[in-house]
């Protein structure tokens, strides 16, 4: 990082130092996450503190809901037809039929690509047998119905105050172990915790779904002729009996709900924080990809450790964050200069906005980013900055000259 900042005039750096601007290398995603939490903009889920009474009443009301019952009836009828087409394999394959056909359709010719990162490969559309076509249509219908039921569950769960995940009710078999992984649980302790939440949200339905699923698989194993396959299935059954969380369940039929919890790791590693969907979206939008921070109160610029390359450069992130510091501190040190300069900056920014072009798209975000991008590019490629946005080149240069003057005083 120091190497990159050597591009700045030493008097400018001296000014930054005198004004107390500090540069740090941190994990900025974790820092932003902490900041959002401290300011109450990110809260943890309540799915680990479910009112089991409310969850039970919610499950009962869903089981007696006429709309839910109508959807279930339609689903049962479609499942029955699917079973006619494919027999006993169906309860195990779930999405398998459609997945298989879709995989076939998307398959590309083998061999390494000779051109392009996104080269389009010619492929013949696969011949889909009529039976499979019907199965695909059935799956399409099932997905629509499952989505409808999912919406119904979302609305009712909100009314009941039971935190379950939205829009996740789809046809097909899934074990709670898989659900835990989908929600980001990695360690055995996290999976165990998730299993407890599954129990709290679903109550007796969870056991009922597992019992039925086990019965179906046992029945299938009993009718198998191939001893090798039978043996493999027998082993899987033993494993499922020992670890019920591995038993695939018919979620739609048994109203198996997923607790609204995501195991979120700021910066992608370390201990997980439990967030609900709304907070996860907020974290993804604000935290993920954070590469630099400037705290005007503490005059601290932070650069993400991952942004620092082997050569010590940060691809402009350090320069950009330092520029924010210079902007703030010149304003505090010489208000009279800053007033005039700031008016010119606003004017240049307004012109760039009207033009819809500057040195980068990000420069058009607001005047603070405009000048930070300007100062950064002044050090990266001054000629390019002057060509692309001469007014920004001038205001950046004047800010740096002023900081430099103050640096030698």
């Amino acid at each position, binding site marked *: 990082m120091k190497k990159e900042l050597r591009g700045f005039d030493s008097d400018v750096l001296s000014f930054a130092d005198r004004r107390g601007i500090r540069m740090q290398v941190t994990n900025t995603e974790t820092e*932003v996450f902490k*900041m*959002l939490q401290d300011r109450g903009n990110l809260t943890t889920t309540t799915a680990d503190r479910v009112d089991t009474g409310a969850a039970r009443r919610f499950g009962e009301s869903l089981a007696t809901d006429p709309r839910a019952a109508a959807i279930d009836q339609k689903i049962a009828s479609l499942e029955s037809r699917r079973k006619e087409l494919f027999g006993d394999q169906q309860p195990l394959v779930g999405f398998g039929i459609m997945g298989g056909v879709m995989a076939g359709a998307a398959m590309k010719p083998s061999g390494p690509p000779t051109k392009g990162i*996104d080269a389009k490969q010619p492929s013949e559309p696969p011949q889909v047998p009529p039976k499979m076509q019907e199965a695909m249509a059935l799956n399409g219908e099932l997905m629509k119905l499952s989505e409808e039921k999912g919406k119904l569950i979302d609305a009712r769960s909100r009314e009941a105050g039971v935190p379950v995940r939205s829009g996740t009710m789809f046809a097909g078999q899934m074990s709670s172990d898989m659900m835990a992984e989908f929600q980001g649980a990695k360690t055995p302790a996290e999976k165990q915790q998730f299993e407890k939440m599954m129990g709290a949200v679903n109550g007796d339905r969870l056991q009922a779904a597992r019992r039925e699923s086990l019965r179906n698989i046992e029945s299938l194993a009993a009718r198998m002729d191939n001893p090798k396959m039978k043996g493999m299935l027998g082993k899987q059954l033993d494993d499922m009996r020992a670890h019920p969380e591995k038993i695939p369940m018919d979620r739609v039929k048994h109203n198996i709900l997923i607790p609204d919890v995501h195991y979120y790791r700021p910066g992608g590693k370390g201990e997980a924080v439990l967030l609900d969907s709304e907070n996860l979206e907020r974290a993804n939008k*604000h935290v993920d*990809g*954070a590469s*630099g921070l400037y705290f005007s109160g503490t005059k601290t610029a932070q650069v993400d450790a991952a942004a620092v390359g082997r050569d010590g450069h940060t691809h402009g992130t350090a320069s950009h964050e330092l520029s924010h510091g210079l902007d703030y501190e010149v304003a505090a040190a010489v208000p009279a200069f800053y007033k005039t300069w700031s008016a010119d900056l606003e004017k240049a920014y307004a012109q760039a906005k009207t033009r819809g072009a500057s040195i980068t798209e*990000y420069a058009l975000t607001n005047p*603070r980013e405009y000048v930070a991008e300007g100062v950064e590019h002044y050090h990266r490629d001054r000629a390019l900055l002057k060509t692309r946005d001469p007014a920004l080149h001038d205001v950046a240069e004047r800010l740096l000259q002023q900081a430099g003057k103050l640096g030698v005083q």
Partner: protein
Amino acid sequence: MVTRVILRHLREEDDVLVLGDIAGEMDVVDDSIEVAIDDPELQQRVLEVVSEPISVRAGFEMDGVIVTRLEPRGPDHPEYLSALRERLEQSDLRLQVEIPD
């Protein structure tokens, strides 16, 4: 619209890098890039660089804290090509990347 980017070899002469022959070209069409280089090894290396995601700046301000974030963008983003040029030129491939205006 197709943007054709020319890749030229840079070779070292008396400790100075001088412009050499055309190594190949890249055609950028909407959100995809096709790389055509005769040397299969160089083609592979360039593909590796091109396949790495490219991000551009975004950000927000909250209570006196300015947060700069990087968001991945595809070849259809106006800053993609200049970022790709920077990445290719900073690699050890010794290439100059010529992007038409």
